[in-house]
Structures are given as C-alpha cells and as structure tokens.
C-alpha cells in the first residue's frame, strides 16, 4: 500500500477521492454483472447463461 492510499480520506486530493469513488461503483457493478451471468442460481438465468458459463470456465452443471 503506498503512502497516498494509506492517508486518511480528508488528506486525499479531491481528484483521487473522485477516482476512488468511481472505482468502488465500477467494481460493485462489475462484480454484480459477472455474478449474475456466471454464478446466479435462478433457473432462467442459468439456462440463458448456460453456454457462456461453460465457455468461460465458470463452475456450472
């Protein structure tokens, strides 16, 4: 961890804070999409994403 990211939020320049906020939003949405397409259990989601799950080596049955 570098000195920049270990400093507390108040000491961060506003552009860095802005970037971190955007990163959290992007990470949440990104994981959400991968979870939905690759892991979610509902049968309709599984059936639609079935070939993609196998093709991209997500665990599937």
């Amino acid at each position, binding site marked *: 961890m570098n000195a920049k*990211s270990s400093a507390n939020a108040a000491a961060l320049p506003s552009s860095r804070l802005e970037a971190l906020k955007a990163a959290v939003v992007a990470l949440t949405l*990104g994981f959400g999409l*991968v979870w939905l397409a690759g892991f979610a259990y509902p049968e309709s989601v599984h059936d639609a994403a*079935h070939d*993609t799950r*196998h093709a991209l080596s997500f*665990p599937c049955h």
Partner: protein
Amino acid sequence: MIARVLTTGLIAGLVAGLAVAALQHFTTTPLILASEVYEAAQHAHDGGEASAALSGLSRTAATSAATIAVSIGYALILLAAMLFSGDAIAPRRAALWGACAFAATGLATSLGLAPQLPGMAETDLAVRQIWWLATALSTGAGLFALLRLDSTAAKIAGVVLIVAPHFFAPQPATPESTAPAELAARFAAASLAVQAISWALAGALAGLVWRLQSRQQELS
C-alpha cells in the same frame, strides 16, 4: 468521473462481448452442442429425458447477451483495479491487467477445476463456486503483491496467496463422463483461449475508449 468510467465499461464491454460471442459461436458452442448429443443419448438409454432449455436462435441470443454482460463486468473490474492502484488508463496497460486477471480467473482456477462440458462428472456446485471465487481473488491479490509491491514480506505473502488455494481444491469427481475425452480436451483448451481473449479484449478496449474520451474532452 463515475459517468465516464461507466460509459467506458459499457462501450468496451459491449464491443468485446460481441466479438467474444462470435468467437464462442465457432469454437466452444459447437463442442457444447456435440456433448449434449452424447448426454441426451445416455439419458435416453437410462430411460430419462434431457433437453436444453433453449435452442436455435434464442439460445445464441441468450448466450451472446450473457457474454456481453460478463465482458462489461470484466471491463468495469479492470477499470476499477486501475483506478484503485492509481494507474494511467491506456490500452496496453489495461490489456496487461486483463492478462493478470486471466491468470487469476482462468489459469489458477483451471488447475483445480478444469473447464467442463455438459455431461461431465461433477461435484457439488456451491463448493466449486466458492473455491473458484476464493482462488481467483486470492491469486489476483497475490499477483498484485508480487508485481506491484516492493517489500520482501509482500512478495512472500503474494506467493502464499497464489499457492494456498490449491491445498483446498475440491476433490475431483469419479470420471464417468458421457462426453468423449477428445471433445473434453478440445473444449478445455478452447475455453481457456476464449477466456483469455475476453479479458485481454475487455482491457484493451476499455483503455482505448478511455483514451478516446480524454481526447474528446480536451477538444471540447
């Protein structure tokens, strides 16, 4: 900033997803369809019934939509990683992040869980999903520690994070697959290649779209 990140992820993921969906159509999907013929024959022999929920064009459309969703997800995850680590977002660097992500979600996980065709012997799904996720996250963190942190302690921790998950890999199922071994081998290789291309393309395009947006902002 948030709007720009989301727009970049959306455009890059959409384009990458369409390209990967086309690639799947000619590489992995034919192998899946072939394996289902063997699976259905086995079910018929056992007196049961097996049929895919979707077929034809609707199946292709659903697969493409799912692939696009995954690609947008990959692009957003890579953008988030570059923003967190304070990297400049550019095509080459983003593609390298994609390559590392593939090492985490593709190479590391396939050591414990080989990519599978339908009809292959399998163990409990939840256990496999948990191990897959834990291994991908642990390997990703380990690679970051190895490649980006300078202290010896961090590098040792990185190696531990990469190696440790493999001591907990799910027990492989007794081999009793209905799919012929040749199909399964071709599928495992094709699946890894398609996944590598997905990550690299999502990264490179995210870097490219980001750069194009920067130029546009400078001009306006």
